[in-house]
């Protein structure tokens, strides 16, 4: 099985605060991997580092075997850096989030970030923009009619497959919560990713919606040959769907394994439930 994503000794330090500490992990082709941990453990920060929103203070990230991000402490950080492996990554490589999306990494956000004033259709159509070959002048003068039509057709197809076609002309901000989550995933899929990062896809969902979401994630994973890496708090969902789980606490991995191993791991239980005080 080939590796789709690999993080090597990734540290993200903001001033004196170490949000992610020497995190190393990998996600294999076709897997569903979950990243869990208590609030403030650095899960979303890890996602932001992978997608280029933040440049890591130290460490390297590989996507499909290619180095996409690499950094070591520079400037002020040389003095402030508290992590390890500071001399391990001599190359500096930084990419903006849009470049990383273009490589095939799509994501959703913890607090839904739809284009709220635009319709469902437009939300998905915008994701097709980055693959458009037309320049701004030919697009303005409508010399790209064929391409535009193809973009619209693909969007329509995607909405039909995901069961959102009836809502396509609705303003996305007015959709019910569950549908907004679904639309955000649809929008991410429209970028034709090979790796999908889901940041708490089931947040705020009731058990029935969570079940639907579980089936939905499985379906898109198979249909689009995706690899899924997700942050989630709903343990039912995580245990049912994940092939492997990483547990993060205070920015560090404290456990790794399949759902059963994780459930029985004393350090995980401790992180989630606190230390038992024996009398």
């Amino acid at each position: 099985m080939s590796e789709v994503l690999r993080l090597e000794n990734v540290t993200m330090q903001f001033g004196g605060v170490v949000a992610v500490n020497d995190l190393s992990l990998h996600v294999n082709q076709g897997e569903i991997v979950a990243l869990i941990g208590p609030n403030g453990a650095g899960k979303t920060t890890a996602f932001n580092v992978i997608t280029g929103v933040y440049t890591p203070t130290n460490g390297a990230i590989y996507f499909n075997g290619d180095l996409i991000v690499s950094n070591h402490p520079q400037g002020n950080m040389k003095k402030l850096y508290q992590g390890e492996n500071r001399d391990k990554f001599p190359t500096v490589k930084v990419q903006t989030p849009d470049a990383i999306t273009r490589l095939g990494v799509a994501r959703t956000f913890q607090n839904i970030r739809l284009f709220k004033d635009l319709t469902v259709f437009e939300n998905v159509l915008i994701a097709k923009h980055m693959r458009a070959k037309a320049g701004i002048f030919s697009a303005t003068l409508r010399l790209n009619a064929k391409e535009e039509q193809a973009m619209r057709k693909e969007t329509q197809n995607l909405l039909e497959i995901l069961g959102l076609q009836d809502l396509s002309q609705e303003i996305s901000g007015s959709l019910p919560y569950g549908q907004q989550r679904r639309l955000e995933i649809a929008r991410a899929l429209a970028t034709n990713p090979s790796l999908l990062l889901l940041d708490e896809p089931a947040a705020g969902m009731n058990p029935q919606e969570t079940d639907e979401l579980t089936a939905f994630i499985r379906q898109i994973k198979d249909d689009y040959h995706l690899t899924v890496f997700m942050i989630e708090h709903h343990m039912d969902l995580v245990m049912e769907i994940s092939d492997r789980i990483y547990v993060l606490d205070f920015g560090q991995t404290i456990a790794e394994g399949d759902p059963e191993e994780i459930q029985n791991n004393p350090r995980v239980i401790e992180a989630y439930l606190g230390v038992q005080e024996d009398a």
Partner: protein
Amino acid sequence: MKKSTKYVCSLAVAVIAVALLFALDANKTGAGMLISILQKSAILAVVAVSMNLLNGFTGLFSLGQAGFMSIGAYITAILTIPVKNLDGVYYMSGIAPWLRALKEGMEASPSWLQAIYPFLAMIVGALVAAGFAALIGIPVLRLKSDYLAIATLGFSEIIRAIFSSPQMDQITNGSYGLNKVPTFPSVFGLPSLFTPFIVAAVSIALLVLLINSTYGRAFKAIREDEIAAEAMGINLFRHKEWSFVISSFFTAIAGGLLAMFMRSIEAKTFSITLTYDILLIVVIGGLGSVTGSVLSAFIVTASKEWWLRFFDQPLIIGGWQVPLFRTGFRMVIFSLLLMIVVLFYRQGLMGNKEFTWDGLARFFRKLGKKPAQAKGGAEG
């Protein structure tokens, strides 16, 4: 409403507009006031729509419009003032020899080329403005909201200061400004009165096409949520730069038109108040609505310069002179009207919707049913 009905309605409006222009052309002396207001409105409509592209569609709060307009206006004016008038215009310091040589060369060229010079001058002015926009966009567009506004405002003031500086005397005539700028040239053999409307219509049409293209959608995505837009593979800097450059291009085109309209320009014309006037038009029309900006350009200009004029005249009813009616009172009423509009139409007249015939029909139906509650405006 049926599609054919809408089509007929649009066609009727276009025909009426053209007929009105011909009527005005036949009666130039009597309708001088109306003509000049309509022309000024059309010019401001172009600036308002380009400002809306930036502020309303891309979400970049920029206040540099006056600066880009002045670049367009000055270049158009310098390139179009006839050689025979040069000594009269540059009576203080004279004109730079290279500029005179260039202009003499232009006047020696064949006549068909000379006929399009005014348009070339506008386009050259617009390209220079676009070039400046591209350059200052590199550092400035990394700023957000208020900071961007301050930076662009500063740029606009710098341009104004440069144009009026003594070092530029031989090119821009410094603080004396330029006059004897020829009026609008004619296009397609139509009366020259049509020119600002044609240029404005073409500019706005191009901007609308851009806004409705895939790039326009990307701009809207940036306005809605920059982080999400980036996650959708949209390069923030490249798209903001495009929006800024294109907006500046059309702003400068309008600046060129303004120079031809006013016949004389000086650096003072392009002070920050001009930008505020345009911002006012954009906000009253609705951020993110092209038709709103156009409508509001006409309404604001007309009410400022024409409809409210009688408040400036002394008014005597039955021997009693109504107090307050004197020069300047018009602006008090105008400001009051603005406040009322902003209070009742929070999002401007059109919000971020566009005008549609369906919307107009709905508006009148609502007006007929519940006159007291008809506050929605002609939303589409």
